């Protein structure tokens, strides 16, 4: 059943990405001021939303672990953070490349960029913490606390444009009262978002299965050494 879901998610994601790539390169026009480079938005924004979603899932899983003590929530949190971090890396990398053309620099210590970098470092720290603690229950508890408090960083990144004056553009999506994009362009962002969310869900499921293998290995090792 799980394999069928994985294959289904992979096919949906691949199909959507391929179709959307065709639309982005062949159908949609260049942006009036930025030219072709604005197309980076079709990965940059969906990756940001996907990464925040992953970190949100990790926060909820952390809360559920602390409430119930069930390690399956810890497994979900770890997988979500890892996949979220991959998307966060895409956000930083694509944003930097886009900035090189638009602002003339690869990086600026702007509020949105700086808080996003701190967010990336926080969740990279989460993964390092997990490797440093061997005992599963203690690891799960510490990770849960970090995933809950770490989410505050996500809120700060999200609101950075409103709280501080930044180089980074404000909201462009109409659902955030942006309205800087033509409807056809905005639709492509949502389709790519769906594709990346399916891809993210698939990667989280694969990662969760690997965590279960790890736990089975630890359990069998304890059994072997108990003889």
């Amino acid at each position, binding site marked *: 059943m799980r394999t069928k879901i994985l294959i289904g998610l992979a096919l949906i994601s691949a199909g959507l990405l391929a179709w959307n790539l065709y639309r982005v390169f062949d159908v949609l026009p*260049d942006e009036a001021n*930025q*030219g*072709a*480079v604005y*197309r*980076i938005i079709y*990965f*940059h924004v969906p*990756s940001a939303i996907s990464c925040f979603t992953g970190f949100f899932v990790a926060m909820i899983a952390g809360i559920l672990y602390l409430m119930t003590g069930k390690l399956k929530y810890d497994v979900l949190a770890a997988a979500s953070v890892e996949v979220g971090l*991959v998307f966060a*890396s*895409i956000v930083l*990398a*694509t944003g930097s*490349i*886009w900035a*090189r*053309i638009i602002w003339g620099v690869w990086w600026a210590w702007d509020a949105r960029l700086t808080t996003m970098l701190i967010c990336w470092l926080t969740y990279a720290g989460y993964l390092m913490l997990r490797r440093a603690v061997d005992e599963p229950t203690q690891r799960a508890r510490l990770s849960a606390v970090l995933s809950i408090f770490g989410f505050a960083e996500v809120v700060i990144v999200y609101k950075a444009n409103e709280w501080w004056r930044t180089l980074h553009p404000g909201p462009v999506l109409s659902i955030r009262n942006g309205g800087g994009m033509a409807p056809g362009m905005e639709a492509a962002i949502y389709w790519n978002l769906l594709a990346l969310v399916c*891809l993210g869900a698939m*990667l989280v499921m*694969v*990662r969760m*299965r*690997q965590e279960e*293998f*790890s736990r*089975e*290995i630890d359990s*069998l*090792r304890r*059994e*072997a050494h108990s*003889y």
Partner: protein
Amino acid sequence: MDNRNFQYMFLGFLVAWLIVIVYVVFLAMREGKLKRELDRVRKMVEKR
């Protein structure tokens, strides 16, 4: 239109895809390693 716009656009797409591909390869390698270790430990327990 400036050619650099196209070059940086392709660079952006390339980097995004590379990050995903590298992570998928990393996951595949880890899965192989875990499966081998699981088989090894299962055999060790069975022998006992």
